[in-house]
């Protein structure tokens, strides 16, 4: 049994005109304490939807199916509301742009202590003490607890929002594009912090980003999402060196590398609309190695190597994608 098990998660959003968008379609992954897992893909592929579902924070227009187990307990059994007792205490999240969402008129230390009181973890001076410890843990001096967000740099605010997420000692941390708006040097500092916290606290880290090199440097394993589905998952090394889904290969080929000599090529076309189920492989219109059966049959995620799964018909035809 893994610490976090996501099993066949589906999310649909109701559209105002009566239609539905199938934003996450049978997403499954699992991770252990201290493990760092990446969720990558283009915008609109379902990464953020997936982790918001784990937090029980989807808007009312969403409906959810599937299981999300934390240490064996299904936290989604009674729908989104049943996540509440686990939220922040077992599973916490650093939101995209969190550093710009701190309350400007409250001291940073207060903002870190507040969720502790709300969740009955600590209150009063104990909460203040713990807030100071958390700040030290994320690399900010404890005396900064009495300062306001505007007195912090972008990097410090992002550290503070990580401290806030850790206030109730969660076992799982979901980080949505935690370094996207930051400079490279500050990005490196934050990634180092997340790696250290995951190792020291045994945190299971889910890193959501469109930035493959960031995942390559931080995570041991990753899942590549496309059109609401995981199309390939496995060890980071295999995803880069032996990708078994064309989308994974093309995403890497579209990403410039500092020392890369080969041409950087974009992926033609755009991701499909998710408001109508289509037959066949959702990546087919953009794929460079289409087979006849790709139009009719939707490929399922299959084991292609130890610990590596891919949803591509090519893998049955022999040879990598």
């Amino acid at each position, binding site marked *: 049994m893994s610490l976090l098990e996501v099993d066949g998660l589906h999310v649909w959003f109701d559209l105002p005109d009566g239609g539905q968008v199938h934003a996450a379609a049978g997403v499954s992954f699992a991770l252990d304490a201290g493990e760092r897992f990446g969720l990558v893909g283009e*915008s609109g592929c379902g990464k953020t939807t997936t982790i918001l579902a784990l937090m029980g924070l989807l808007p009312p227009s969403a409906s959810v199916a599937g299981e999300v187990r934390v240490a064996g307990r299904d936290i989604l059994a009674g729908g989104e509301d049943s996540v509440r007792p686990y939220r922040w205490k077992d599973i916490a999240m650093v939101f995209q742009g969190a550093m710009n969402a701190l309350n400007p008129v409250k001291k940073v230390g207060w903002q870190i202590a507040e969720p502790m009181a709300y969740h009955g973890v600590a209150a009063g001076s104990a909460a203040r003490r713990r807030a100071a410890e958390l700040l030290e843990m994320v690399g900010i001096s404890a005396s900064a607890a009495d300062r306001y967000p505007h007195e912090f740099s972008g990097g410090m605010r992002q550290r503070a929002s990580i401290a806030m997420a850790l206030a109730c000692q969660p076992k799982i941390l979901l980080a949505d594009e935690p370094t996207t708006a930051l400079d*490279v040097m500050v990005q490196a500092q934050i990634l180092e912090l997340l790696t250290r916290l995951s190792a020291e606290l045994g945190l299971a880290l889910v890193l959501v980003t469109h930035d493959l090199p960031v995942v*390559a440097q931080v995570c041991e394993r990753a899942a590549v999402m496309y059109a609401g589905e995981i199309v390939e998952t496995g060890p980071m*090394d295999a995803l880069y*060196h032996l990708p078994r889904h064309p989308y994974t290969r093309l995403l890497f080929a*579209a990403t*410039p590398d500092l*020392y*890369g000599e080969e041409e950087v090529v974009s992926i033609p076309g755009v991701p499909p609309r998710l408001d109508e189920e289509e037959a066949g492989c959702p990546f087919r219109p953009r794929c460079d190695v289409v087979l006849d059966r790709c139009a009719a049959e939707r490929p399922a995620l299959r084991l292609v190597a130890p610990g590596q799964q891919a949803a591509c018909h090519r893998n049955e035809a022999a040879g990598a994608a």
Partner: protein
Amino acid sequence: MTGTGPVGTGVPLLEVDDLAARYPVRRGLTERLARRPRRWVHAVDGISFTLARGEMMALVGESGCGKTTTAQTILGMVAPVRGAIRLNGTDIAGLDERRMRPLRRSLQMIYQDPYESLDPRFRVRETVEEPMLIHSIGGSRAQRQELIVSALERAGLSPARAYLDRYPHELSGGQRQRVAIAAALALGPALLLADEPVSMLDVSVRAGVLSLLDGLRRDGDMGILMITHDLSTAAHFADRIAVMYLGRIVEHGPAGDIVRNPQHPYTKALLSVVPKRDPRQRSTPQILTGETPDPVDVPAGCRFHPRCPVAQDRCRSQDPGLRLPATAASPVHRAACLLA
């Protein structure tokens, strides 16, 4: 440098010479009453470079290093406090609006966010046509239509007729950025400034927009100055890279030399923290502590010395100029470090 002018003249397309620009720091009421002296943000503090026709140069650095102010000064949006900006040999630094206007045509800018830079009420046709009307390009409607179509096709929006009547909300991010590029191309600019042209776009389309810019400068004599924080992109697409820190260029040279044989400790640190695609290449990032200091109080001596891992005593007092580093492989490589 490699800049050559219209055949035989030897005049580079763009010559920036000891350019400096600053912004006043807003003073509070108490400061004004106490008659404290006005303080300045020294955003750009004496930079020089040239750009040749058909060349792409990348200006890289972290936020606040002065790369965007440099572009704004070249465009005439910010008046420089000193220095020259010569476009085809003519100094355009600090020209007034009236004299700047005819030059704007040859000086176009591509902005970071195509979701913000296009007017949502304008169809693609109008977005590309408007600057042509302002600059009186294309005599008749039919002539303009022809120019619009050709600009869109050059920007990779083909067939152009399929895009003419669309609104920005009907286009993807990559297509919007291509419309912005087409609107610039319609004026036949000599110099294109591109400020983080792909950072708002999806990974899958970035390469396409960058290759488009690359192709445009290669098959014409347009020069491109690309401003980016992304060293991997700069390494791939630019001929030369200039690294800025606190308002100064601290290192510049051919892109390959900067990436593979960096000489300035700041460049070395920046390169070390760029995440690599290959998980096997997990280098130890050389993480600098703290963040770039405030450009209001620039450190004495070498402005990088407070964060420099190899700083010596003399670095605290001596301000190093750009010079050919001892171990440089290229004769045009320059670094501003006493130890290089």
